[in-house]
């Protein structure tokens, strides 16, 4: 069966070009970039090129790029570095729709280290309450950390405005740009963020490679203490193969950014509008404008997400649901709950996240599958009768 992959916010296909770039370094060219010999040195050259390519994608200087093992490590490193830099400041500001990669760290810091964390709420469209955010900034705030784009809904936060306010107040600002990278333009110089996380496997590089951008001048303290690698900011022999792959992926992402915001966006909009038109009782989660071009979170009244996903899966369609059903919690995702999406559609919310590998034929296949799937489930739902909710 042909696979229709529309779960790119979960992970992406490693691009063929990326694999080709990596293969020699997985095979013959296995030298250690820190070695004195030419054999290692040639790998170091390639790592340097990769660092430059990553820097180019976000308009950073190469020395500001720290390679890590994943987005989660980048996020954790940023927060720990901030609290090490300002041990007396016991307040952190974030939002209530962050990724577990960072959200669970806050809970840990609250519980075990006595931190006070302000989880700034979002409105029904997933947009941040900026007044509350600005009012909660204080002398005691060690760091503000907000995601650039939400993984479930694709909703974008106004990172540039917030960074500006944070800078004015002299508060450190970090953004988790794992979902924003390669989908919207990122310019760290213009934005003025202090730290920024990104992750390889969301942008057609392999899993297990991440980046933390650290602005020059910040007294960064390493999360992994060890060798002198990464300018003493992250111990451990470099994951050369993945770094080289990520470099190539960043170069491609820069080229593909216009496609993402034209072709891919048009496909997403086509899918969205067709589904809204053909399936009554459906609604989009999140602001329609302030949103990633590739993401569609759409809720269907009176049906449940896991059932939809399994029926889509039968037709080779990969998507994900907003419900955390398998984790024992039957509540819909914390993101949809924070947005006060009504239960009637929150449980039946599905996320489609596209890439430039998707085609119009694939969108048509999804539409043709989803329409009867929702009908089938509604036919046996006690909350649906004669074409509407009861």
């Amino acid at each position, binding site marked *: 069966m042909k696979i229709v992959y529309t779960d790119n916010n979960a992970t992406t296909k490693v691009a063929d070009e990326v694999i080709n770039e990596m293969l020699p370094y997985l095979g013959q060219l296995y030298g250690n970039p820190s070695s004195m010999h030419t054999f290692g040195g040639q790998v170091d050259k390639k790592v340097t090129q990769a660092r430059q390519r990553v820097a180019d994608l976000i308009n950073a200087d190469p020395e500001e790029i720290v390679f890590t093992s994943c987005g989660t490590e980048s996020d954790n490193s940023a927060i720990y570095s901030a609290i090490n830099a300002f041990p007396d400041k016991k307040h952190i500001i974030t939002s209530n729709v962050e990724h577990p990669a960072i959200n669970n760290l806050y809970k840990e810091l609250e519980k075990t280290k006595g931190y006070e964390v302000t989880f700034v709420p979002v409105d029904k469209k997933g947009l941040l309450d900026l007044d509350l955010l600005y009012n909660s900034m204080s002398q005691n705030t060690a760091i503000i950390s907000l995601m650039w784009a939400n993984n479930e809904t694709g909703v974008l936060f106004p990172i540039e405005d917030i960074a500006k306010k944070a800078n004015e107040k002299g508060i450190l600002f970090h953004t988790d740009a794992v979902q924003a990278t390669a989908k919207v333009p990122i310019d760290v110089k213009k934005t003025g963020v202090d730290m920024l996380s990104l992750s390889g496997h969301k942008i057609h590089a392999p899993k297990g490679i991440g980046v933390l951008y650290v602005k020059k001048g910040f007294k960064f303290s390493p999360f992994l203490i060890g060798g002198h690698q990464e300018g003493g900011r992250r111990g451990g022999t470099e994951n050369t193969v993945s770094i080289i792959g990520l470099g190539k992926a960043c170069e491609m992402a820069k080229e593909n950014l216009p496609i993402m915001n034209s072709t891919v966006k048009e496909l997403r909009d086509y899918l969205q509008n067709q589904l809204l038109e053909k399936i009554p009782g459906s609604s989009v989660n999140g602001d329609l404008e302030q949103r990633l071009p590739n993401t569609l979170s759409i809720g269907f009244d*009176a049906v449940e997400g896991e*059932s939809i996903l399994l029926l889509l899966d039968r037709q080779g369609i990969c998507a994900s649901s907003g419900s955390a*059903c398998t984790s024992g919690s039957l509540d*819909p995702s914390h993101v949809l709950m924070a947005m006060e999406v009504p239960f009637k559609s929150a449980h039946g919310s599905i996320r489609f996240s596209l890439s430039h590998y998707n085609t119009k034929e694939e969108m048509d296949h999804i539409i043709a599958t989803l329409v009867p799937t929702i009908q089938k489930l509604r036919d*046996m*739902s*006690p909350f649906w009768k004669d074409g509407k909710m009861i």
Partner: protein
Amino acid sequence: MWDYTDKVKDHFLNPRNTGELEGANAIGETGSLNCGDALKLFLKVNENERIVDATFMTFGCASAVASSSALTEIIKGMTLDDAAKLTNDDISDYLGGLPKAKMHCSVMGQSALKKAIADYRGVQILEKPGQIVCECFDVTDLEIIDAVKANNLESTDDVTNYLKAGGGCGQCLERIEEVIESVKAKG
């Protein structure tokens, strides 16, 4: 997600006995939209108190649909007295087992059946005895104590898997922990 047995998959993909049942003389409803799953069970019971037909309507995940489908297959032909003895394990066993996190789906089947039988017999199911511990899912301390004893549950996760209690806002988790401790303390 693919922890499901072939039997569960079969009953999810090809559910038996769905839809409203014309001429039903007993109906049992459990769950709600907010909970994330709900089951409405329709029975046709003859003058000898035998279930001659059963159908269901379910909102929920694959195992909720499969449990409902299995339930209707099991109880068709049973007397109400026998049906009243059915447990959630019978439903789960019929399906070759359910993943732990989905045990509450079989509990839901058992609960809808109880309500349908009460509906037929015209008895009112009284306000639940005991104190509500989990507001989100309307679960009492006595229900938790029963489930802990019957299934040797050890942790709050176990309780959530069986009764859903604690799987919503999570505010009741400490209280659930206390209830589990109290059962253990009494041996």
